């Protein structure tokens, strides 16, 4: 999933989507799940929707973001 293969489209890869999410969180600090998804789709394309949750999981595992259940916002921890 993370490691690209012969047929990975770099635009829709977990790595690329993760990089985009990080840029957004650096600019906006906290953003809702749906808003962030909309920005990902608007910028990278509809097909990026599929790997969006995996990108969030990836960043969470790396300790690069937190989830605030009260507000359902994604908060970046740098």
């Amino acid at each position, binding site marked *: 999933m993370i*490691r690209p293969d012969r*047929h990975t*489209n770099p635009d*829709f890869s977990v790595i690329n989507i993760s990089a985009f999410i990080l840029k957004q969180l650096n600019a906006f600090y906290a953003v809702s799940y749906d808003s962030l998804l909309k920005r990902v789709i608007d910028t990278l394309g509809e097909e990026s929707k*599929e*790997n969006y949750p995996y990108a969030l999981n990836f960043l969470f595992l790396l300790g690069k973001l937190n989830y605030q259940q009260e507000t359902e916002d994604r908060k970046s921890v740098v």
Partner: protein
Amino acid sequence: MDYRLELLDDSTFEDLVNTICQKILGAGVISFSPGKDGGRDGKFSGTVHNFPNNTIPWSGKFIIQAKWTGESSASCSDHDFEKIVNQEIPKIKKLKDAGDIDCYLLFTNRKYTGVKGEQLLKKIVAETGVENSVIIGKETINNNLNQHKEIVRLFRLDLHHIPFDFSDEEIKNIILAFKQQIPSIESDIKAEVDRIKHDFSFIDKKEKNKKNRLGEDYFQNEIAAKTLMDFEKIERFLESPQNEEIKDYYYDVVSELSNQITIKRDNFDAFEEIFLFIYKMICDGSKELKGTKRHVTTFLHYMYYNCEIGLKE
């Protein structure tokens, strides 16, 4: 060589059969136009030299019948074919009673099976009284065509691909059909699957064709001219994250095909024969691919072009 007679149509198959008969019986074969034919697609009168053999050749009034099917896996054992034979028997009897038949040739592009095929032939002889009867299946038709390449060119049977719109659903079905027909991947070759998945190297096509003994004509006329236009669709399908699971199946298929090609390479001369071999292996066992079998070749060409099968070094 197995010519894809199932891609013809009824009328063209009849013409093909009559043309073959001109070679094996004689130039005096007469074709009948489409319509009520009373059990005849062609006829010939006279003595032949080499049919069925040159020791006791047949003579008299020959009646030729052609029965085409669009199914590549159809055989003379199928219930359909038995029904067809049963329908033809009264027509043959009528011709026999009128003195219009001495020899009956029934051509079909179905596989001729030893047991059932012979049973049907005996039934024809027993119920019609026409002793000199024969059912000629696709194996014999292919042999005749191999001996008369001018007929192959005349009917363009050497073309292997007919352009057609290629949908995502068809791509998915083809990958799944490949997966079904190829034995389960053993765990010890998972490493091989992984290697193929992450091998990003390619080779110049001229060099690849030379290493793999793929004819330049075949590459230009079949791959570059016909199937190359569909490769982008396959690429986009495989790149789409939604098709991740199907993509994994695709890699399993590629790995297994690559193994089989390596093992069986010496059984073939030109690489294009391997394409045909795999095509038959996939299509003959699959009912799901009805209507999309032509794209199996596209897929094989894609795998070859993408350096996923065939030698690179």
